[in-house]
């Protein structure tokens, strides 16, 4: 089935999310939609999938103009979507998820689970998916959950498959498997739209590439284009893809973590006997697929976890068992992984957000009362220094773009006298320009002789920043290796395998 999007325009209020976008996808072809976060890729796909109605333009399938009033119509027309955040019901089985909305029924609306189960088995066997139809979805690894999404689309006879940022949650190995699945689907004659901002993946599978920036198509590219060309097209200016940094000036061992063990309220052990140390002036990057204990590690370091055993020593002082405030006061800066939930108060102004970790005493508080002028002067200075693009220091933090929000968090955490910086996913969902800026700040912090722990699920970021890399898998350290370790080795370690020449 051939898909044509013709002059699609979608507005949200005064904001034009999609500006006159045209796109063509042929059967047996992988068409890649490349663009930064916020460029309008997902909006376009939500228009295609009937979740949004386009203000202008039309969707044409095999020369027939379509009018989708909801996802049901889009699916009936043969469009299947693999969502970035899986649209699966965690407590349902695979079979229940696959048949939902498309149930075959017997007498009085009773579910024909056997037929559905058979369908799952059949599709699973055809593409070598190895999915158990009776497994509960939330108990499956994310890679398998994604295959359930694919099965869901295929069971509805989808001819056009849309993958929305499918690799964000996958290990490098799972990503390779997904690429293989895409090739298989392509050979089976499906038309595939692949949305991503990762250049490496684009060049691996795309037959055609369309680049989107600020809601508009800015060009087409061939899969043979270089990373630098694609990045420049995507961002609109030449981009430095590598971070310039000098060799680290190593000091003493500042942070020493020994036999750290973290258990949650349900009794799940998230970290088990973790030991490592970071020297002053060194960046230790923690690599691993999301959910292997990184969140718990960073939270344990700042005192946010309740059941922590073992020892965390910063410059000789024990941090385990201390309150969050005492840990922060002893000089720990923390960039949390979810800035909207944990990093900022969206309804507070930028200035108020900048003083959140210093709300107890001077310079911003005097005898329990806020000192507005000191705060404003400070905020103006930081806005300038950290290049936060905002109308005013009184603008609500929730109104800023992702990159600017993150800069506010970074500004707040780096504006104190630090003895340790913990940065969890510092550039997730941030535009390329802000990524460059934040990376420079992290390295500058290191060069001031401060130990830095960076957690990232993006291998690119790990490689760019790390002096040494610690790989976590299922709450344990697979190994701590030098920063110049090849990506393939790191990818392998992220699946829990320890290459022979690596010492734990």
């Amino acid at each position, binding site marked *: 089935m051939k898909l044509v999007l013709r002059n699609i325009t979608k507005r949200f209020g005064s904001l034009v999310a999609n500006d006159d976008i045209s796109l063509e996808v042929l059967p047996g072809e992988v068409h890649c939609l490349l663009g930064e976060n916020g460029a309008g890729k997902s909006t376009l796909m939500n228009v295609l999938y009937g*979740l949004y109605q386009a203000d202008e333009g039309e969707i044409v399938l095999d020369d027939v103009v379509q009018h989708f009033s909801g*996802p049901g119509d889009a699916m009936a027309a043969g469009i299947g979507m693999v969502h970035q*955040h899986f649209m699966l019901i965690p407590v349902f089985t695979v079979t229940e998820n696959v048949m939902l*909305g498309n149930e075959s029924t017997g007498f009085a609306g009773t579910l024909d689970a056997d037929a559905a189960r058979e369908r799952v088995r059949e599709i699973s066997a055809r593409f070598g998916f190895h999915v158990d139809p009776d497994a509960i979805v939330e108990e499956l690894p994310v890679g398998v959950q994604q295959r359930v999404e694919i099965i869901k689309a295929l069971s509805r006879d989808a001819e056009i498959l849309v993958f929305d940022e499918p690799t964000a949650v996958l290990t490098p190995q799972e990503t390779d498997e997904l690429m293989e699945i895409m090739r298989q689907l392509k050979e089976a004659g499906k038309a595939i739209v692949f949305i991503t901002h990762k250049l490496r993946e684009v060049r691996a599978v795309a037959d055609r590439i369309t680049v989107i920036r600020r809601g508009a198509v800015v060009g087409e590219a061939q899969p043979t284009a270089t990373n630098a060309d694609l990045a420049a097209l995507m961002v609109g200016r030449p981009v430095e893809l590598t971070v310039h940094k000098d060799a680290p000036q190593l000091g003493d061992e500042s942070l020493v973590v020994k036999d750290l063990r973290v258990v949650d309220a349900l009794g*799940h*052990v998230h970290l088990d006997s973790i030991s490592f140390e970071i020297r002053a002036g060194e960046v230790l990057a923690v690599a691993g697929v999301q959910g292997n204990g990184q969140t718990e590690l960073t939270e344990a370091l700042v005192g946010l976890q309740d059941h922590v055993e073992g020892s965390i020593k910063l410059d000789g002082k024990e941090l385990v068992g201390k309150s969050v405030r005492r840990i922060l006061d002893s000089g720990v800066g923390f960039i949390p992984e979810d800035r909207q939930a944990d990093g900022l108060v969206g309804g507070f102004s930028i200035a108020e957000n900048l003083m959140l970790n210093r709300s107890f005493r001077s310079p911003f508080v005097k005898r329990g009362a806020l000192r507005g002028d000191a705060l404003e002067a400070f905020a103006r200075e930081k806005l300038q220094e950290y290049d936060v693009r905002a109308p005013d220091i009184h603008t609500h933090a929730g109104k800023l773009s992702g990159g600017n929000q993150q800069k506010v968090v970074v500004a707040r955490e780096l504006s104190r006298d630090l003895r340790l910086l913990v940065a969890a996913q510092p550039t997730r969902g941030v535009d390329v320009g802000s990524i460059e800026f934040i990376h420079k700040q992290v390295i500058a912090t290191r060069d001031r002789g401060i130990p830095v722990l960076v957690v990232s699920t993006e291998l690119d970021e790990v490689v760019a920043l790390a002096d040494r890399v610690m790989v976590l898998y299922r709450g344990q350290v697979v190994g701590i290796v030098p920063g110049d370790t090849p990506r393939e080795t790191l990818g392998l370690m992220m699946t829990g395998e320890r290459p022979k020449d690596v010492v734990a």
Partner: protein
Amino acid sequence: MSTTAGLSPAPRTRGPVVATVTVVSRKTLVILGVLTLGLALILATSAETGETTFRLAADSDFVTLPELTVPSLRTAWILAAVCALLTAESLRRYVAGRPTPAWAVIAFAVAWMAGFLTWASAGGSVPVVGLLAGSLALAVPLVFGALGGVLGERAGVVNIAIDGQLLLGAFAAAIVGSATGSPWAGLAAAMLAGALVAVVLGVFAITYLVDQVIVGVVLNVLVIGLTSFLFSQVLAPNAATLNSPPRFPRVPIPLLGEVPLIGPIFFRQTVIVYLLYIAVALVTFALYRTRWGLRVRAVGEHPKAADTVGIKVNRTRYRTIILAGAIAGMGGAFFTLVSVPQFNREMTGGAGYIALAAVIFGKWDPVRATLAALLFGFASNLQGVLAVLGSPVPSQFMLMLPYVITIFAVAGLVGRSRPPAADGVPYQKE
């Protein structure tokens, strides 16, 4: 707008974990221990002697079971010992890092209750059939209410207004039943009334995204005010024509009604009670085995996922809560068409809130919620029966019993339960 800003936040992916250490709650153990000690304390300080008679037969049984007479204090001590044994078992398991199994809790509850009854009615006789049949009678509105609650919450709508649905149902049944002279018309009116409350709830909670708990509470107050006003202005002056509804007669089921113990309790009841059995079975079957049920559960767990496969989330929610309201309305009809043949101010006595507790205690499952509602009904009736028996416990104290049991059950024994993920969260398309 960034492309992801409007989407619902991604659920935190729960990754693989190294291992799971079972964190066993001490709650159950502590409660069992305290209750055992309490019973022993009562027995030790009591001077009650004599015998307790358990009457197992109803008056009109085909086969009459003999009465069971036991020495009160000794039997009570034996049962207390059983409780102590079960507590010890719970302790043993706790030490071994395992939770107390459900059978032990149930056995404990039965033994404790029997021991307490034996002591409390020393020198007298306990009408077992009457006690249990009365429990069922008190539980009927609770079960209907709980079924309605389960359905609504499974679809993602928290329904605090169960009490309002019961009350308006009772009111409508009384007035329509009286006016038409037909209990069936009264029942239909009660269902409509319950559904009407549900529609109002839906308009605010689903369409206008108002906080569901607040709407529910306001609706309850509204229904109380409305029915009280109409009662004093309309029903009370015209009691003969508008507030003397016909009652559903008892219809014993042949054969089943003759089974000793079971028969008189369950099968010599009114039509509404038989409808209740059918409703429990139907709701359970429909929720787990039909397309309708799958979709209802889907919109309560992850409405956006349901939307992306073409299910109309809000329409499904409306339909479900309206059905749920009709079911709860039937429970209201039981008050005026079976229990008492007239409507009174606030006559539900907060039954809707107890039903809500049954929903949670029953972990959002229709069968478990029904059992929970039966337990609460038993607690209410026990209080009445003990008062009649002239037990040594002050009756004012006994009045607390159903509520104390409710709190203990919900807070202490329910364990970790997980409500539907989108329960109480309105769904809004972007």
